């Protein structure tokens, strides 16, 4: 049985599945239920400064993107940080932590970008017994207009500055939560590291408008005829999040910086993928908001079973395993040549591969009058589009040509050795192969 216990920058939890700072972690009631359901940790809904709390809109806070059968693919939200008094949140956190000492409880914080504000709140958070803090430099809506959230996360100098304050006034782990609403995620990650952050967590939500009501001509979610960009999350953002995680994991400047992965994690497999790209813990929100807290059972059982199958004994055995295989385009092996192969027994003759290839790719699939689809090797560039659009799993696969075989498209023999763009004769900047 794989050991799922997690030690993430000293924060211990019985499994790597944490609930992200978000509506599900807004108060004691929800967090207790989450722990009862088996979640390894919780990042409490973001706390604001002392004083009158923020207010939320009184109409819809969420918009949605559906797949078939109203399957939730993505949700955006315009909810702000906690709208409950700081004192209430702190008292609840202390009570919950006392009752659930084995679970990770992390305080998310967002206060103005002034040293005094951070200096004031950090000791009070420390008193709760929370295992660490997460700096919310990510939320792209509402609070950003007030100079907080992603407004800080988009300025690496501010990230470094605030992180340093936190490391000065707080002695437990400091996790910096990054916004994806930026062109190069490595810069804010580097800034967090420079400021002394113990870890980064990402991604926060993506600026978005989920839909437009074509009757009222207003974006959704709509408040009295108007809408604003909200933060987008859920399965739809997973590829974006994983790339950002991988960029940080493989950049020499940030390699090894612990990462808590967030972004559309809905199943054990999603979690395993994030972990393989370097995440020591994962945070979940949309899946819980869609299906409730019980999903963690599937996540734990699935991850454990998969680790057993693969012979991974601990979480550390998994974390970062795929990172060495993330590289730049220029280093991809141009002598790796594959061809699409269609399994005629599995083919159901829908013709989607044909339409896709004929209309939008390389005209490399032939269709016979009796609807048999075959690959024209002379034209196939192995783009994989046919595999992607085929509704039958494993019907079309990419088969590697072996060294010595002739690629019918180019007429050239497949070389055995690795060769990439940096040495390619068409590259004006190529360095001669030795």
């Amino acid at each position, binding site marked *: 049985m794989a050991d799922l216990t997690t030690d993430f920058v000293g924060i211990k939890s019985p499994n790597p599945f944490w609930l992200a700072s978000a509506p599900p972690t807004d108060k004691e009631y929800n967090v207790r239920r989450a722990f009862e359901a088996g979640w390894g940790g919780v990042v409490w809904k973001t706390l604001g400064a002392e004083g009158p709390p923020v207010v939320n809109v009184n109409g819809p806070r969420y918009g949605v993107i559906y797949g078939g059968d109203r399957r939730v693919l993505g949700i955006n939200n315009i909810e702000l940080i906690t709208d409950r008094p700081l004192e209430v949140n702190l008292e609840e956190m202390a009570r919950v932590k006392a009752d659930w000492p084995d679970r990770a409880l992390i305080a998310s914080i967002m206060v103005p970008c002034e040293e005094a504000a951070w200096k004031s709140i950090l000791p009070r958070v420390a008193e709760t017994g929370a295992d660490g803090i997460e700096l919310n430099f990510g939320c792209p809506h509402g609070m950003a207009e007030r100079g907080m959230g992603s407004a800080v996360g988009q300025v690496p100098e501010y990230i470094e500055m605030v992180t340093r304050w936190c490391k000065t006034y707080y002695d437990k782990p400091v996790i910096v939560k990054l916004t994806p609403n930026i062109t190069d995620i490595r810069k804010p990650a580097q800034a967090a590291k420079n400021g002394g952050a113990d870890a980064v967590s990402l991604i926060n939500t993506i600026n978005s408008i989920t839909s437009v009501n074509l009757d009222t001509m207003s974006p959704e979610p709509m408040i009295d005829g108007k809408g604003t960009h909200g933060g987008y999350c859920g399965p739809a953002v997973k590829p974006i999040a994983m790339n950002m995680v991988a960029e940080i994991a493989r950049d020499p400047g940030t390699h090894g910086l612990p990462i808590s992965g967030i972004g559309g994690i809905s199943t054990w497999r999603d979690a395993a993928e994030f972990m393989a790209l370097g995440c020591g813990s994962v945070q979940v929100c949309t899946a819980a908001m869609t299906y409730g807290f019980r999903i963690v059972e599937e996540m734990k059982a699935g991850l454990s079973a998969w680790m057993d199958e693969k012979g991974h004994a601990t979480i550390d055995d998994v974390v970062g395993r795929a990172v060495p295989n993330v590289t730049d385009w220029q280093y991809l092996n141009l002598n790796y040549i594959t061809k699409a192969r269609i399994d005629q027994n599995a083919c159901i*003759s829908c013709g989607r591969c044909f339409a896709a290839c004929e209309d939008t790719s390389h005209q490399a699939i032939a*269709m016979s009058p009796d609807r048999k689809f075959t690959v024209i090797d002379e034209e196939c560039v192995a783009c994989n589009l046919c595999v992607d659009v085929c509704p*039958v799993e494993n019907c079309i696969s990419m088969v590697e040509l072996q060294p010595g075989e002739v690629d019918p498209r180019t007429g050239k023999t497949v070389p055995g050795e690795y060769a990439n763009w940096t040495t390619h004769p068409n590259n004006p900047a190529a360095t001669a192969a030795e």
Partner: protein
Amino acid sequence: MADMLTPGIAAGRLGEDEIARNFADLHPALDPHEAAVAADRCYFCYDAPCVTACPTEIDIPMFIRQIQSGRPEEAGKTIFDQNILGGMCARVCPTEDLCEGACVREKAEGKPVEIGRLQRYATDSVMARQGHPYDRAPSTGKRVAVVGAGPAGLSCAHRLAMRGHDVTLFDAKEKPGGLNEFGIAAYKSTGDFAADEVTWLMQIGGIELKPRHTLGRDITVEGLKSQFDAVFVGVGLAGVNALEAEGADRDGVQDAVGFIAALRQADDMTSLPVGRNVVVIGGGMTAVDAAVQSKLLGAENVTIAYRRSQDRMGASEYEQQLATSKGVRIVCNAQPVAIHGNGAAVEIELEYTADDGTGLKGTGETMRLPADQVFKAIGQTFTLDAGLELERGKIKVTGAGRTSLDGVWAGGDCTAGDDLTVVGVADGRDAAEDIHATLMNQPAATTGAEIGEAARA
């Protein structure tokens, strides 16, 4: 008050409520969410097999995509462009043998996209609106006679009217609709859908209906030819094959088509008499329709007796399963030799048959089943002598329904091809385009989908 065990042929075997439940819609309409889920299963196949399998070549993937994107009325228009009786076809087509049978998801997982019900969803959306979705072209001044207001005639008349011709639509019966009105199991076309559909179709204008005009008695092809610029004959099959068995003239031996028509026209089904022990002779859709409805009316025992083996039955596997699920027993390789009784039928004697490769033969072994009502569903024939050349007992046509007489077209059940509503619609539509092209001296419009022609060439 009769019940299931009342001997002989009796009405009122079941109460009003049970009858209503029994004859409710076989495939109820999809609600919008069900339609969205069903539509989402469509793969939008290239040169889709379902289209090829549809005699009217409806662009099925396109109309389903239009449902997916929230435009059921445009989806309906896509259907009606090819098949103006798309509403009825959605209800009565043997989709398991046509579009749904060809669906790649049938091949993949044995569960085709529910094309029939989606088609009903789309066509219902259009028909629920006021008005009619097609306009007539400017008048051509040409007049066309269409004989028979069944699927073929209605389809032909509509397309001709749309092209700007004036149509006179003759029918032998009081009501238009043909077999849509008189020939389909009641649970497939509930309410007054067949009549409503004709009313909706006629809204295009330019079609004058003349009921109670029987070809060969009140009107003739020659006469129509002299009065109209063109004639289309879609009169169906009026004759019923005779049962060659001793005692076939006994009381209680009836044509299945008459029974089915009576069911469709009945205001109160509890008033319809049905036997306690019913035997239906035949193996096609008519046999199933008669057998199932006998059961639904409250017959205690209903048996379909088919002389060949089960795999030769004209009724689809789905129809056979429907019958057995309602409690109908299907006996194959049994042919009627005698109907016994004292005036009225009491028993049927069936002889087992076998085919040793040299043709079907009786084995000599017989069995007897109680039978106070025997329905003949052994096929219908074309009996009319309209002066048109015949081929295998039906009107001979070439191309888009051209008969041996210049200026006379024909289609539907009275010509070759499967006797299905959807085939009649295709025949009528294509003949109309050919008539239009001929009268206007221009090339005929293509009517089929041509999505994959280039690729297959």
